[in-house]
Every structure is written in C-alpha cells, then in structure tokens.
C-alpha cells in the first residue's frame, strides 16, 4: 500500500517534471520561434525600408526625344506626313471637330489639332486648339482657335523616340495624388478594394466575401487582395502563386500600413500598377496609361475613361481598348454601374458616361525607331550620364532628330538594299555569309544638326553602327577636297579655275619608294579635260595630277579643316580616297559646301533635363569660317554638274528634280559604294558595302545613289529650297561646257560657269586647245 502510494507520488512528480521539461522545451521553442519571427519581420522590414521608404521608389527610364516639328504657312502637310506624325504623337482622330487636348480633325480645308501640354527645356507649354487652314495640303494660315489670333509659326511637341529602361522594362511617368482626378481614385477603390480606408493592409472581410463568391461560382471570380497587397505583390514580389508569397505579401502589407499613410500607399499604387504592354516594355502607372490609351494627361481623363482605366487593372490585356473595344466597353460600363450603386456618381453622369464612345490613338506600328541614333546619343552622353544613370534618373534628352527623315531613311535602306540584292544578285559574291549593309546620315549643314542616322540594315541582328564606328575608304567622295584646295588661290597658291585644262593621261609617280600609277574606273585615258569634266566624270588620273599640283600637304590640311579627323598622309593616293574615314566625319566635312565654307560641328544632343525640369546640359551649335566662300561655291557648282550630267546623273532618272550637288564614290575592287549629296538646306550621305570588306561589284552610282535619291526625294524636295548662295566676288559667264573657253556662237555646248571675279578665261572656245594646262615637270 505504502509502496504503491510512494510509487504514485513518484509518478506524479515524474509527470510534473515531464510537464516542466516539456514547458521548458516549449518555451525555448517558442522563444526561438519568436526570435525567428522577429528576425523574419526585421528582414521584411529592411526590404521595405530599402525599397519603399525611399523618396525615389522606382527607377525611371530616361527618354530620348526628337526635335519639335515647326509649322508655318507654305508647309505641305502631306509631304511631311503630318497626320502620321500626329498618330505617333498619340493624338486621336476625332472626325470633323476637336473637343479636348489630344484631338485632331482633318477636313478638306483645314487640319485642327488640340495641342498637348508639353514641358520643353526652359518652357512649360500649355496646349491650345489650333486651326491650320489649307489650300490642298499646303498650310495657308495658322489660327489659335482659343484667342482667334493668327500665328506666323507654331510647333508640334517632340516625339518620344526611345526610353532607356533597366532590366524591368517599365515605362512610367510619376504622378502625385493631387494630380489624379477624383473619379479615377473612386473608381479604382470601388472596383479593386472597396474597404481600402477601413482595413490595415489585409482585409479578412474581403477575403471571406471573395471565398464565398468563388465558392458560389465554382471558380475564381473575385480576389480578396487589398490595394496594399496588390502594391506589395507588384512592387516587391514575383507574380508566381505560392503560399510563401501570399504569406510575405500579407506581412509586408501590414508593415507598410503601419509605416505609411493611406494617401502614400494609394499614390504608390497609382504609380506602380501594371496596365498593359507596349512592345517589350510594360505600361506602368495610371499616368503612363492615360497617355498611351487616351493621349491625355491623367488629370484630363473623363469619367468614362477613368472608369475604363480602373476596370482594366484586373486584366489589362483582356480589356485593352485598342484591341478589344467591345470587352473594354462592357467592363467600363460595369465599373460605372458599380460607381453609381455606391453613390459615387449621379444617374445623369452615369447615363452620359455610358454613351461616351471610346476613342484611342492609333497604336504605334513601329516599336523601335532610330536605334543606332539612340546608341550614338548614349555614347555622346556617356561621360556624364552612364547607362545606369539613364536607366534610373528619368532624364529627358532632347535631340536634333527629325522623325520624318529618320523613318524615310530607315525605309529607304531596307527597301533599296533588298532591291539591290534582287536586281544585281549576279554581281554579288556567291554564298557570302553577311548581308549587304548600309549607312544613311542626314545633316542640316547650316547648324550641324544630325537629322537622321541609320547605322545598319537591322539593329536586332547587328548593333554595329556603320555611320559612327565603321571606318571605310571614301574613294572618289574625297575628291571635292582636292578640287576645293586647288580652286582656292590662297590654299593652293595656284590660279586654277573650273575651265583650267587637266591632263588625264597615265603617269607614274614614286610614292613611299614604290611606283604609283593611277587608273580610271573605265580603264581609259581621256586626254585633256577641264577641271569641271574631271570632277563630273570622276577621272582619277586628272584628279591625282591636280592634287599633286595643288600640294598634297595642302589637301590634307583642307580635309582636316573641313572636319576629317581620321589620320591622312600626304601621298598621291590620298586624292583618290585611299585613307579610311568614318561616314559621320565625311558628312560633317561635306557640310562646309552648302554652308558657304563655314564648318558647323555635328550635333545630336541639344538639352538634357532632369525629371524635375532642371536643364543640366545645354549644347549649342558651334561654327567657324574655315574656307574662302568663293572657292567653296566653285566646288559646289562643279558638284552640281555631277548630278546634272556626271556620275550622279542617275539621281535625275530616279526622280530627284531639285537643285543639288554631290559626288559618287567607289573604292578599288568595288568594296565600298558612296554617295554624298546636298541641297542648300539638307545633306545626305549614303554608304553601302559588306562588313568584312567583300567585293560587291557595284559602284556608288549603282548601289548608294538609289538610296540617296529615294531618301532626298521624300525629305528635300521643298518648293522653298532656292539655290546655293553665290558670294559677291563670284561672277558667271557663258563658256563652252566641253573645253571651258568663252562661249561663241560657233561653240557646241553653252554653259553658265562660275569664276572668282578676275579669273574668267580670256580665250574663246575655238582657241582653247592652244592653251593647254602647263603640267609640272615631274609628270
């Protein structure tokens, strides 16, 4: 008995001890659990602090803009493809009349545009309704419809050419809560999280309601996530569905609600939310979405548009109004109904909004434009603004790009190269691995603006920019610098005129210890020819003689003064373009011809502005007189002959009719084909060749000129072009085109030739063979 009692007592103590032991273990376990929980919460807290508690929550892509489009009477809106530009600028075609910002309407006698607001560097522009009165497609007058004022000039805002994204590829424009219309806020809260102002991040009532609805429907019809949870999911976490993600989402939502006001959370949500896809980048935030889907600032959205945007959050691609207008309208009306039920809008407003048509701008077909130009811009800015800065700081980079020119140039390269490969397949090397490549540059000579740049045929395939990175022999496109040197009496110390006779017969000269004998492309010699004929027909032998006569050192100096920075040596082959140059250098150097001997530095970036509107970089046009305007004019006048009669005459056959001058270029074994040509206002350079220097058996006139003609026909044929400005000390007299002598009735071809005053030929055409060019002794 006693023994049993002892046993029982012992058993009781043992149980107590066991319980104590268990209690201790449990306490330790709970302590560890609590510590781990605390540590876990601390980790989440740190993630929130590191990313969300910052004033800058998102990496904002920097944006590259084109130049503005200036409109004034005389402009042909069809030849500038203005309506296509309005579409690219996300204006909306609203039929015959305009009602609000972002609308345009074209009628037979006018084009009306309600201009967008735009922040230019140093200027905040407020949009207004504009009327362009037309005669056919030519602007006859411009009227501000708001004030009734007649304007001499107006402009369309620059186009956004590209965004420089980080790896998340999110396109976003930040808004503050005060900029967002009340309707949009109410619609989003009504449709996504009706109890937003009543919960603390997670809403058990909402979850229970969603579970009940889903259970009733037998499928997922409603989510229980609060706005805060959606924000956390998008901002911090991956979209994958898992228990841990949900768990973290809930914990972080509670944490965020503890640390931030409802207003801050709502503002972050409005900026974060995913609303669709544009190519490879996503449209994030309501502001970017308002611009993309409705061509408006978010503050300008109507009730109906706000309801649609709020409705799209659930499934942006399903309710995309650009693709599925029916579904979008249905969804919009559901949201409007919900707003009415919740007494957020009146019945009248509900009825009105339901009847509003959905008008969206046309969707951009071209997703990427000017990729090579963008790379060039980035490279220009790299010193102060490296890639990671461009990806995060939301800078706005204003460039000199003319989008119309750029699009025409890109089309010309793709179409004409394909045509060449089709038409001249027999000339091209068999089984060559690479494609024929090309480069097009357009420059505005008067200020050095780079207006268009195509650095290759397909950026996706090869990012190598042949315009700025490629080094190629220029061939005969170098010759104008020889002629410019010769025709400038101060540079050459010679009295050479367009009528001077050159000897185009074979000769040999020692160059670097080796004999050098230039040959013509047609393998013939042409005897005595004028300076004009030698350049128009691109005779190598005569040009080499002229370069030696004018002084090879001087020719090198001329090229350097014009802007060629690649190393050149004063050897005879220099005259025929044997030294490699970059196409961009060549375009800049040629710009001295239409610019009357003034060298304007090429410029691509004009301004860099921070997201807050501070101009941190302002690049000015720079120019300097480098050449005597008379000698420049004479050379330009010779190059006009290249297009009118010479090796570039195919330009006329290809439909280019305006005043222009230029020069073809073909290198030995037909490895490079060039054409550089210009009007008084525009200069275009085209290069065609293979990246590996393979022979293509096509000359500049055959391969490069068609691209140039197609491009310039579209961008440079303006009725206001005029002629090249003739300096006061240049006179024009009638000569015989073939021998350059003064014109008499007995001469064959009458031609108006330009001379520096006092250097006109005295001999008449029938005497000229007597006065041959005195060749230097070493020939």
């Amino acid at each position, binding site marked *: 008995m006693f023994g049993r009692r002892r046993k029982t007592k012992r058993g009781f103590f043992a149980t107590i001890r066991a319980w104590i032991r268990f209690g201790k273990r449990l306490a330790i376990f709970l302590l560890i659990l609590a510590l781990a929980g605390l540590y876990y919460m601390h980790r989440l807290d740190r993630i929130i602090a590191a990313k969300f508690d910052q004033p800058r929550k998102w990496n904002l892509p920097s944006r590259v803009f084109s130049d503005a489009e200036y409109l004034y009477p005389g402009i042909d809106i069809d030849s500038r493809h203005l309506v296509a530009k309005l579409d690219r600028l996300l204006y909306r075609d609203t039929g015959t009349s305009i009602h609000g910002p972002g609308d345009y309407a074209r009628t037979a006698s006018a084009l009306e545009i309600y201009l967008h607001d735009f922040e230019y560097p*140093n*200027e905040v522009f407020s949009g207004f309704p504009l009327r362009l009165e037309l005669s056919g497609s030519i602007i006859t007058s411009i009227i501000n419809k708001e004030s009734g004022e007649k304007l001499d*000039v107006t402009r369309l805002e620059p186009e956004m050419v590209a965004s420089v994204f980080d790896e998340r590829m999110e396109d976003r424009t930040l808004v503050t809560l005060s900029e967002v219309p009340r309707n949009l806020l109410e619609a989003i809260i009504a449709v996504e999280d009706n109890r937003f102002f009543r919960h603390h991040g997670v809403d058990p009532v909402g979850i229970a309601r969603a579970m009940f609805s889903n259970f009733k429907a037998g499928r997922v019809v409603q989510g229980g996530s609060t706005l805060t949870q959606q924000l956390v999911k998008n901002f911090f976490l991956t979209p994958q569905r898992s228990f841990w993600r949900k768990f973290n989402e809930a914990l972080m939502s509670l944490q965020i609600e503890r640390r931030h006001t409802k207003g801050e959370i709502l503002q972050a949500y409005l900026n974060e939310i995913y609303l669709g896809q544009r190519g490879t980048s996503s449209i994030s935030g309501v502001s970017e979405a308002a611009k993309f889907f409705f061509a408006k600032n978010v503050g300008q959205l109507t009730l109906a548009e706000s309801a649609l945007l709020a409705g799209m959050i659930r499934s942006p691609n399903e309710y995309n109004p650009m693709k599925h207008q029916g579904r979008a309208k249905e969804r919009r009306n559901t949201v409007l109904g919900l707003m009415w039920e919740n007494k957020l809008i009146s019945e009248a407003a509900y009825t009105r909004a339901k009847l509003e048509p959905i008008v969206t701008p046309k969707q951009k077909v071209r997703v990427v434009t000017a990729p090579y130009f963008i790379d060039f811009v980035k490279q220009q800015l790299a010193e102060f603004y490296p890639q990671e800065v461009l990806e995060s700081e939301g800078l706005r980079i204003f460039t000199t790009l003319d989008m119309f020119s750029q699009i025409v140039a890109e089309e010309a390269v793709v179409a004409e190269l394909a045509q060449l490969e089709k038409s001249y397949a027999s000339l091209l090397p068999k089984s060559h691995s690479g494609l024929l490549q090309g480069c097009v540059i357009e420059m505005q000579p008067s200020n050095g603006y780079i207006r268009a740049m195509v650095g290759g045929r397909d950026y996706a395939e090869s990012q190598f920019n042949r315009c700025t990175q490629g080094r190629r022999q220029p061939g005969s496109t170098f010759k104008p610098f020889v002629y410019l040197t010769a025709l400038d009496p101060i540079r050459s110390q010679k009295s050479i005129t367009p009528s001077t006779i050159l000897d185009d017969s074979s000769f040999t000269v020692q160059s670097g210890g080796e004999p050098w004998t230039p040959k013509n492309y047609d393998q013939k010699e042409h005897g005595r020819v004028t300076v004009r004929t030698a350049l128009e027909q691109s005779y190598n032998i005569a040009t080499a003689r002229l370069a030696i006569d004018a002084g090879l050192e001087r020719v090198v100096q001329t090229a350097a003064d014009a802007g060629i920075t690649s190393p050149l040596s004063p050897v005879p082959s220099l005259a025929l373009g044997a030294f490699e140059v970059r196409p961009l250098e060549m375009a800049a150097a040629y710009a001295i011809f239409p610019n*009357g001997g*003034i060298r304007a530095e090429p410029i691509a970036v004009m301004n860099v502005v921070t997201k807050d509107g501070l101009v941190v970089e302002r690049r000015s046009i*720079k120019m300097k007189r480098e050449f005597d305007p008379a000698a420049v004019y004479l050379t330009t006048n010779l190059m006009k002959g290249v297009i009118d009669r010479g090796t570039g005459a195919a330009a006329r056959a290809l439909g280019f009719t305006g005043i222009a001058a230029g020069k073809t270029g073909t290198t030995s074994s037909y490895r490079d084909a060039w054409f550089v040509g210009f009007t008084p206002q525009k200069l275009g350079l085209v290069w065609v060749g293979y990246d590996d220097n393979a022979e293509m058996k096509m000359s500049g006139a055959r391969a490069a000129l068609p691209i140039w003609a197609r491009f310039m026909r579209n961008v440079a044929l303006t009725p*206001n072009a005029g002629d090249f400005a003739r300096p006061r000390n240049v006179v024009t007299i009638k000569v015989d085109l073939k021998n350059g002598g003064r014109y008499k009735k007995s001469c064959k071809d009458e031609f108006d030739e330009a001379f520096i005053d006092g250097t006109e030929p005295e001999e008449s055409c029938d005497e000229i063979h007597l006065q041959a060019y005195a060749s230097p002794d070493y020939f």
Partner: protein
Amino acid sequence: MRRNSSSSLRLTRLLLVVLLASSLIAVACAKKRRPSYKKLPPRQERVEPFPAPSEEEPAPPQVPEFAAPQRQASHRLVEKGKVSLQSNDLATAHQHFQEAVSIDSNNGVAYYYLAVVALKNGEKEEARGFLDKAEMLLIDDEWNAKVQELRNQLQ
C-alpha cells in the same frame, strides 16, 4: 570627489552625444549633397556690360517671295528671342534664335543674335563663328556695320 567624477562622466556623455549628433548631421548632409549622377550645374549666366539691341534696328533683309513665310516664321522666333534677351533670359533667348536658324538657315539676323548671346555668355569663339555666318548672309550695309561693330567688341 564622487561628485566630480559623476559630473565629468556627465560631461563626457554630453560630449559624446554632441559628437554623435554632429557626425550624424554631417553624414546626412553629405548624403544629400552627393547626387547619384554627375550633375552639371546650370550654366552661370554672366551679365556683362553690353549695349542692349538698339530700338532702331535696321529692317531685316528682304528675301525672295517663295521664302517669305519661312523667313517670317523664323523672324517671329527672333522677335521672341529678343524679348528674352532684353530680360536677360539668355537660355531662352538662345533657344529661340537656335530655332530660328533651324527653320530658316539663311536668316542672318538670327545668327547675329546668336553671336550676341554667345558674347554675353563670354563664349567668344562661338560668337565669332556666328558672326562669320551672319556676315555671309547680311550683305546689307547697315546690318554689315552692326556685325562689324560686334566683331570689334570681340577683339
């Protein structure tokens, strides 16, 4: 003795707190001042004594009829630039003159005013370049005299 030691302890503590606070403030300020990218300060717009463009300016040179609307548009921008110039807003003035030459590359008056702005900014080399271009386009005697006058100021 004890009182002394406790007061020195308090003093040390106070000093520590002050040091800690000042170092925290210094760190905070330093962080604030260092931008995440190399920001260029906006250009200092130096205002040099320079005669304001005279009210009785010669009329802009005539242009052929076909180029008139283009010149007029460009001229309107020159006028806007002149207004900014008079209020010493050189950045905006420069912007307008640059737009003017972009529309009409033969508008010599716009180049003349680009030179004026460059000179005011102390950019003599740039001013000379613009005057080279203005000189080529403004062949009219009165304008030519104005160009020469400005060129003399660059010497």
